């Protein structure tokens, strides 16, 4: 590496980090975001507002309602005395309503019917599904308690959750959010920074400097690889200190995977910048890549759930491999066989996009 190239990289880094606002955004924002997402986002549905409707003397039903509220999933909905269950849900005052049989739950159960009605607001379908599953388990539990022996459960599941026994959602989310943040920062910043030179006209100055094409390209991209890696380390550190997210696998695996991934995303960002004329285009072009990459990555829902063609496309998504690797290294301890195939796939993508970016970059230079 020549002295000129080193000086160039240093100049780029200084230029990016000189501005306080930029330093805050580059290093403060990922930590804040990680904290917010780790604390606020939970895949578990809680605080379901349930309204119950029965005759005031229906003791068995009221005991059942108490069980609902004691389960931790449900909270009582605020309602007036004359409210209608349908209207209460329509106005958003409750998420679900449980309606007792008119004759009272005990009499109805002893007649052999025992049918209650559960109305669920399904305007959020996944939430509705969870509400139904939780209600069923509360009701079966209650039936077991009320009627004791006649109801046998033949199978009892002892559930053991590997890698995350307490099912803490911060443990789940940190690897995914880390992949997302690193991807976002590197792609958009690289794309916009190169597009900026072109927009402002300083690109010509750089080109006229005594540097080869490759040196110009490296000088503009290496700083972003460094910044991306710093951010990755920062997010892992914050995840460990704030949420106690472990790194169970070897650190070199984490470093190597991050390195390969950041090279791939910086190369993609460079490619985006070569096809855009100004920063707005670079930003939008970055998002055209980012959205599918995030949606197909398996951060929010499993890849296997998607239709066949999308699964095939997901195998071309570097973020999918990176998130899988992060979960594997941080939570599972890094199984070596899986590690090398995933890193290899990412390295191939990094090489291909770097080659493509270099070719396009040279064409735009000349």
């Amino acid at each position, binding site marked *: 590496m020549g002295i000129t190239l080193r000086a160039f990289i240093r100049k780029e880094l200084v230029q990016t980090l000189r501005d306080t606002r930029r330093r805050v955004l580059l290093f403060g924002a990922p930590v804040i975001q990680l904290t917010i997402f780790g604390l606020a986002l939970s895949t578990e549905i809680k605080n379901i507002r349930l309204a119950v409707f029965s005759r005031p003397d229906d003791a068995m039903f009221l005991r059942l309602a108490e069980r609902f509220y004691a389960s931790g999933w449900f909270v009582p909905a605020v309602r007036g005395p004359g409210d209608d269950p349908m209207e209460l849900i329509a106005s958003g005052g409750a998420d679900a309503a449980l309606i007792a049989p008119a004759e009272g739950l005990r009499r109805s159960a002893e007649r052999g019917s025992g049918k209650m009605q559960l109305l669920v607001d399904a305007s959020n379908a996944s939430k509705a599904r969870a509400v139904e599953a939780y209600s069923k388990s509360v009701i079966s539990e209650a039936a077991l308690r009320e009627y004791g022996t006649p109801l046998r459960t033949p199978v009892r599941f002892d559930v053991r959750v590997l890698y995350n026994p307490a099912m803490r959602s911060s443990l789940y989310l940190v*690897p995914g959010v880390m992949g997302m943040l690193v991807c976002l920062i590197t792609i958009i910043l690289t794309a916009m920074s190169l597009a900026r030179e072109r927009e402002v006209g300083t690109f010509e100055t750089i080109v006229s400097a005594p540097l080869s094409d490759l040196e110009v390209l490296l000088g503009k991209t290496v700083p972003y690889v460094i910044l991306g890696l710093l951010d990755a380390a920062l997010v892992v550190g914050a995840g460990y200190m704030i949420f106690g997210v472990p790194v169970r696998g070897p650190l070199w695996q984490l470093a190597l995977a991050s390195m390969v991934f950041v090279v791939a995303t910086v190369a993609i960002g460079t490619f985006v910048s070569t096809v855009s004329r100004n920063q707005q285009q670079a930003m939008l072009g970055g998002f055209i890549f980012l959205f599918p990459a995030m949606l197909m990555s398996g951060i929010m*829902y499993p890849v296997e759930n998607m239709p066949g063609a999308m699964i095939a496309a997901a195998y071309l998504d570097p973020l999918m491999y990176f998130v899988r690797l992060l*979960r594997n290294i941080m939570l599972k301890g890094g199984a070596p066989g899986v590690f090398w195939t995933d890193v290899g796939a990412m390295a191939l993508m990094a090489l291909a996009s770097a080659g493509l970016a270099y070719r396009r970059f040279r064409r735009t230079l000349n």
Partner: protein
Amino acid sequence: MTSFSPHRAFAVARKEVMHILRDPFTLALALGLPVMLVTFFGYAIDFEVKDIRLAVYDRDGGPAARRLKEIFSASGYFRPVEPEAAAGPIGMLDSGRASAALFLEPGFSRTIKGGGEAPAQFVLDGSDNSKAAAVAGYLPGIAGAARLRLSGPGGGEPFYAETRFLYNHELNSRWFTVPGLSAIIIGLLAILLTALTVAREWENGSMELLLSTPVRPLEIMAGKLVPYGVLVLAGVVFVYLSSRLVFGVPFEGGHLLYLAACVLFITAALSQGLLISVLARQQQVAMQFALITGLLPSMLLSGFIFPVESMPRFFRALTMLLAPRWFMAAVRGITLKGADLSELSEPFLALGLLAAGMLALALKKFKTDLEP
């Protein structure tokens, strides 16, 4: 030239429209994003977790064990895979070849036949948030089915609840994601595009030029914002049309109310974009600001995917200050529930206040920065 002149604002707007139209690539990208989001959420994404690979280690081999396996595969959520002796259950979960494993010990069938309660160990891959919670949620249902099928007659429940899903009987994921996309699109386009376009004028120094003309700051602002407002509204109309025509999502409420919610939210978003651009003055800084305060809250803290009610108390309070959360509540209420203004008074009031507040803040900052 003391008062606001619609004529001069219109001239700035015309210039901005010409800017947008002269650059068809940007326009295509701006309109391509909604198309892509709708395609993804409409076709690819299903939040119901299915086809979970389950490795069954059956050391019992009896009839009850066989029936339990049938119950698992008949539920539609699980797909049994052949256990690999060499890897072992933990190895299969480590490498991701299975997401869950079920262990049935010898004597399982005998215990059940004798009327006892047989334990079954269920091991779950907890490294994948999208799966683990869902799988754990399915188990009570499987246990219920096992009760009915394994204990024979007389094992029914003394009481039960019949569920009616209101507004979305078949629990179609699309019905709630696709209409919600309008919030994402506004959060993305309105905030990012305006933040960038005004920051560009600062960065290139053309803002000084604009200011030295007789056009007043307020007119510059109106002229710059309105074209983007129209562009964003076009994105919303696209979401509306595709959700109704392509995905058959019902629209139960009033269109005027829907439009009002969009206009309020777009006003809030555009003002936020303007405020960011005045504070940042550089496109890259503006972009990052917009991302953090605009796009991510609209995607993650609005209730689009993660329900607001499940968040801790502090964050639930924080979302009260976020326009996307109220917009999402209004849109879901209007499209699926057919709610009217009296039922949606709370989200509308909040949206109106936030839009007015954001506009006032942006105006004040813009004016103090520009006027001598």
